[in-house]
């Protein structure tokens, strides 16, 4: 079955983008003379590029995971996962743009280690500069994005080819490629989060940071996948998807939320307990200036999915899942927002037209790209070897 973007969806995404643009304009007009305007504007760019890119990346990871583990049930929703991961090339574009601007502006008070003047007066950064310098940063960034792009293209091309030729050759190829991708991802997901995010709080360090960020990415991706699946099912595009599939993705949302909360707790509790100056500074900043949002975001990301998605029926109920999904997404966006803003703007950050506008603009683009991707391939991967298993999926 071919997917067509409905008129309603077109108007919705367009409205999002237009209002987003409008708000951004108002924001720029209001704050352009502020002292920290450039930092604020670029922080927002970085937050949204990272957030939406990583949703696509999470979908790519999830697909590779399904390949490598030879999972069967997901076959019926494979195209949905592929559509979400289709944001990767766009996300790469946005990220590169931001990184180029930041490099030209010597970090713009976001990556302070890019600023030679700051480095000259800071012994700790000076010591780190073998790792944190512009050249090495770009080598790593290009490597991450290049590899992600390469694997995204390979999985997508082979998936469409499988529709035409069938057989098991592509399946086994995907199995191998999936496993190799996971190796890259295991390393890159950590290191890229250090480079792109942890280095904003340049003095601070935490070994768990990479895994914590990864859990957030995974959770946001599963949430987007479940919302999109429910939307498509409602429109009748996924006749092969039954309640059991929804239940399974719901379980993933539940499980990844739990994983994220567990890692959040591990990192926070250990730093709180040991109470070492160089470590607690990170949380002090967040508790002093972002208290409501910071703990609010933790409660939302943990308690909502945990209490509301615990029962079997909730995981099969479209309304509950969608509402919780949207709330979780806002929660994880806030997480990224605080990660970046508390490091770059510190006490001076606030949410206004600019923040909301840029988020809406990016969300509009994101949704439109995903829907566009959906319309480019048949909704069922007809030659997937596990399709039959997936259709008869029952728990």
């Amino acid at each position, binding site marked *: 079955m071919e997917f067509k973007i409905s008129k309603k969806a077109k108007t919705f995404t367009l409205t999002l983008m237009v209002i987003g643009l409008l708000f951004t304009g108002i924001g720029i007009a209001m704050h352009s003379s502020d002292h920290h305007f450039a930092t604020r504007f670029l922080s927002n760019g970085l937050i949204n590029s990272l957030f939406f890119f990583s949703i696509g990346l999470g979908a790519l990871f999830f697909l590779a995971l399904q390949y490598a583990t030879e999972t069967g049930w997901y076959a019926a929703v494979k195209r949905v996962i592929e559509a979400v991961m289709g944001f990767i090339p766009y996300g790469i574009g946005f990220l590169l743009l931001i990184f180029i601007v930041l490099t030209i502006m010597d970090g713009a008070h976001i990556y302070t280690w890019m600023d030679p003047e700051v480095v000259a007066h800071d012994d700790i950064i000076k010591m780190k500069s073998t790792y944190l310098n512009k050249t090495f940063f770009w080598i790593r960034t290009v490597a991450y994005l290049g590899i992600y792009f390469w694997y995204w293209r390979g999985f997508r091309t082979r998936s469409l080819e499988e529709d035409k030729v069938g057989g098991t050759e592509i399946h086994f190829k995907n199995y191998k490629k999936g496993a190799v991708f996971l190796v890259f991802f295991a390393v890159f997901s950590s290191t890229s989060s250090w480079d792109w995010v942890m280095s904003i709080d340049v003095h601070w360090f935490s070994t768990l940071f990479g895994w914590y960020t990864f859990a957030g990415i995974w959770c946001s991706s599963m949430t987007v996948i479940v919302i999109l699946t429910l939307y498509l099912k409602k429109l009748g595009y996924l006749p092969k998807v039954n309640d059991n599939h929804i239940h399974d993705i719901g379980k993933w949302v539940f499980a990844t939320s739990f994983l994220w909360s567990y890692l959040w707790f591990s990192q926070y509790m250990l730093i709180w307990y040991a*109470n070492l100056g160089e470590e607690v500074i990170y949380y002090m900043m967040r508790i002093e200036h972002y208290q409501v949002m910071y703990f609010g975001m933790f409660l939302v990301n943990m308690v909502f999915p945990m209490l509301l998605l615990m*029962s079997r029926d909730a995981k099969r109920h479209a309304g509950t899942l969608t509402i919780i999904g949207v709330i979780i997404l806002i929660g994880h966006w806030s997480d990224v927002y605080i990660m970046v803003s508390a490091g770059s703007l510190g006490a001076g950050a606030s949410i206004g037209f600019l923040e909301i506008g840029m988020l809406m603009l990016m969300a509009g683009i994101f949704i439109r790209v995903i829907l566009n991707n959906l319309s480019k391939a048949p909704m069922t991967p007809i030659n997937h070897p596990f399709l039959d298993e997936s259709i008869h999926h029952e728990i």
Partner: protein
Amino acid sequence: MADRILYAMYDDEEILKDGAKMLVAKGVKVEEVFSPFPIHGIDPIIGIEQTRLGIFSFIYGMIGLTLATTGMWFFMIYDWPMNIGGKPSFSYLENMMSFIPITFEFTVLCAAHGMAITYLIANRTLPGMKSQNPDPRTTDDKFVMECRTSQNTQFSADELEKMMKSTGIIELEQKDI
């Protein structure tokens, strides 16, 4: 009224399921099915409702959560507050991070054990209980369906027997009580 129990034995769970479907369609009440392993999809056919053990487990868990929280609040904050590791125990909220691991463990402990005990009692499977399966082979590779004449008064015992015999059984045993 004298009751007669009919035990029909099958050697394949699918045949038993088809048989049960046919009997139920004709209005026969199937009292019980004995099998060596869970038969997928038999419950709706013979009218077994989904168990509510899960809700019980949730309740036990909540009890554990409450006990752990109040307990630790009482021990550490109310009854004998101490300054441990530079963290004075004056407020539960400020020390909550330390209490979460045990709260979690105790919640799981209560939920799991509470449910397991409820399960054993609900099943009437406790140490020293006598087994009630009609044939020892039902824990190996045979499947038995049980019908009672007292629950199927619209049929005579002979009719019931004939109907059961037509479902592909391998043996039929009858017992009067």
